[in-house]
């Protein structure tokens, strides 16, 4: 489709140059994220190619030492808490917003999306200031609350997208057939929008699991999460254990987001019954 049926020499040159440029851009995109992977299996303690030999010693550090293990545990606690709250409340809100009669939708939507736009340092510093006053600083609840603000926009958007394919007449039909609102939600609506909900949940999980700035301000020394441990490590001393942690985190977010996107796609093309 790039070339016309009878391409001129100039056109051929242009398209070749385009391909060449794009090839370089793709390399620029992919090489940096692939670099930590071989380095994390390096047996030496330096980041220099060629590698000294194959070893899993850095994974043993990340998965075996107390410091990293507690960080992984903290990350999981916070991410699961955030996912649970953000998915539940975000789904309810998306359902409310999908109703065209919802008052003030044009005002509420930008407000809901604003946590994505407001510089995260401002969110973090503000939470630190406020939570210290109400006794939520250095608590898991505080971190989870702050992460929920950052993660819920993703849930609202993905569930909202899956709801555009949802026919509200189904709810009317369910009501006419005698179903209570809760029953029709769990047995009619939820099964149909479930891909969107799960996809939103995966986005929320990854958002929380990857987050480091809010945690840096709110977490006590015992509540350091995996990204925070990485951030501190990067500031102090570059250790190959960080590349192992980075590889693990990257694998987790890529797997979850691939699932999320496949689900979201399925949710959007769900048959309009």
């Amino acid at each position: 489709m790039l070339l016309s049926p009878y391409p001129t020499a100039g056109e051929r040159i242009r398209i070749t140059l385009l391909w060449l440029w794009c090839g370089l851009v793709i390399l620029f995109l992919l090489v940096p994220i692939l670099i930590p992977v071989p380095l994390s299996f390096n047996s030496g303690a330096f980041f220099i190619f060629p590698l000294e030999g194959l070893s899993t010693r850095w994974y043993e550090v990340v998965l075996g030492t107390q410091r990293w293990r507690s960080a992984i545990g903290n990350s999981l606690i916070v991410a699961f808490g955030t996912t649970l709250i953000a998915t539940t409340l975000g789904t309810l809100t998306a359902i409310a917003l999908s109703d065209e009669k919802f008052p003030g939708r044009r005002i509420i939507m930008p407000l809901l999306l604003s946590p994505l736009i407001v510089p995260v340092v401002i969110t973090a510093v503000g939470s630190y200031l406020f939570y210290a006053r109400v006794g939520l600083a250095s608590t898991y609840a505080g971190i989870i609350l702050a992460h929920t603000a950052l993660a819920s926009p993703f849930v609202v958007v993905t569930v909202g997208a899956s709801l555009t394919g949802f026919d509200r007449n189904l709810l009317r039909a369910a009501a006419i057939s005698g179903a209570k609102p809760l029953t029709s939600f769990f047995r009619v609506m939820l099964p149909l929008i479930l891909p969107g909900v799960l996809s939103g949940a995966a986005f929320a999980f990854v958002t929380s699991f990857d987050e480091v700035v809010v945690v840096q301000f709110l977490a006590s020394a015992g509540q350091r999460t995996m990204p925070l441990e990485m951030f501190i490590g990067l500031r102090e001393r570059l250790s190959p254990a960080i590349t192992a942690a980075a590889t693990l985190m990257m694998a987790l977010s890529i797997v979850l987001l691939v699932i999320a996107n496949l689900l979201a796609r399925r949710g959007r093309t769900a048959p309009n019954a």
Partner: protein
Amino acid sequence: MSALQPSELDRPTLARDRSAADADLKSVSAALRRAEFGDRMRSLLLAAPLLVLLALSFGIPIVLLLSRAVYDPTIADALPKTTAALTGWNGQGLPGDDAFVALAADLKDNQAKGTAYELAKSLNARLPGARSQVLKTVRKLESADGQAALGAIKSVPFWSAPSTWPTIQNGTRSLTSFYLLSALDLRWNADGGIERVPPEQAIFIQVFLRTFFVAASVTLATLILGFPLAYLIANVPKGLAAILIVAVLLPFWTSILVRTAAWTVLLQKFGLVNDFLLFIGVTGDRLDLMYSRIGLIIAMTHIQLPFTLLPIYSVMRTIPPSQMKAAYSLGARPFTAFRRIYIPQVFPGVMAGCMLTFILCLGYYITPALIGGASDQLISNFIANYVNVELNWEMAAALSFILLVFTLALFGIFARVLGLDRLKLV
């Protein structure tokens, strides 16, 4: 019809309204309105939990932080007697002895309550060097009473300096524009006008300009790299396009921290980027890319590239190739067709991608902290530093205030001109 929810039908009151409806149209519309009102309230109720939670975990914290930028009662609280003594003072020269006596009494009270250091720090933020003077005076006052106290305080030349008392008087007003002005390198002068601070004290304008410069450079770089790739992906067969889009999404899905970590490895003196540059012969020597502006811009460009590319791609995808063919067949040269047919249509996508990247770049924190040098720290890093190191909440709040104004203004333009739908990235 759609306004009448079937679930309402089994309500007896509504059923009665319905039976009357045939006779009276008015009551039908009243019932409709009532039913609609109920629907509205119910959907508002559904959205309420998240809205309340966001207000608590996001709205209130930010409002509270911003309020610290304009409301600082530390000095007024610490110096109540001085505040009272200064109410009649016109701000010219030195106030009367009663103000000095009141200050001495206030300072002694602060020493007794253990708040002297806090006061010294707060004054120091407005009057550099005040901290040591206040603490010195407090020590002198320990053994002095009454007239001796007046002598003791007058024996410290700091309290007779021309700028000291106007600053104290300014400080006794809790509602202050001092920090916001400072964040823009401005201050009140003695005549009540606003002036620039002396160049050796001016730091923030430079930091804001640096932030804008980095954001603009990154935006431009992502556009130059991303636009051709978006064009290619939009114009190749579906299967190939899917593979190429995955190449864009994989880094997009990897966290900023992980990608920054990867770049710290790549940009080392003996890292891969230097290896590559030596190999192709661009430089003869290994460059210091870590802790440099250029390293920071490279890493940020890598992180932001998908944000610029995806909105452009989503517009390009909708432009049928037949349009360009029609332009060619009408005699347009490729460049003319591209400029007059293609560019105007993809322009909203380009704007959306570039604005999104620019807005997000203004708030960068992690990457400058890890890859930038001391002179590459952006405004967010200064905010964090004021909170973590200097413990100066007011200054952090003022910088946040100004950064937020810029960010939200741009976001407002984005939402208004381009629409929020363009924020969808996949």
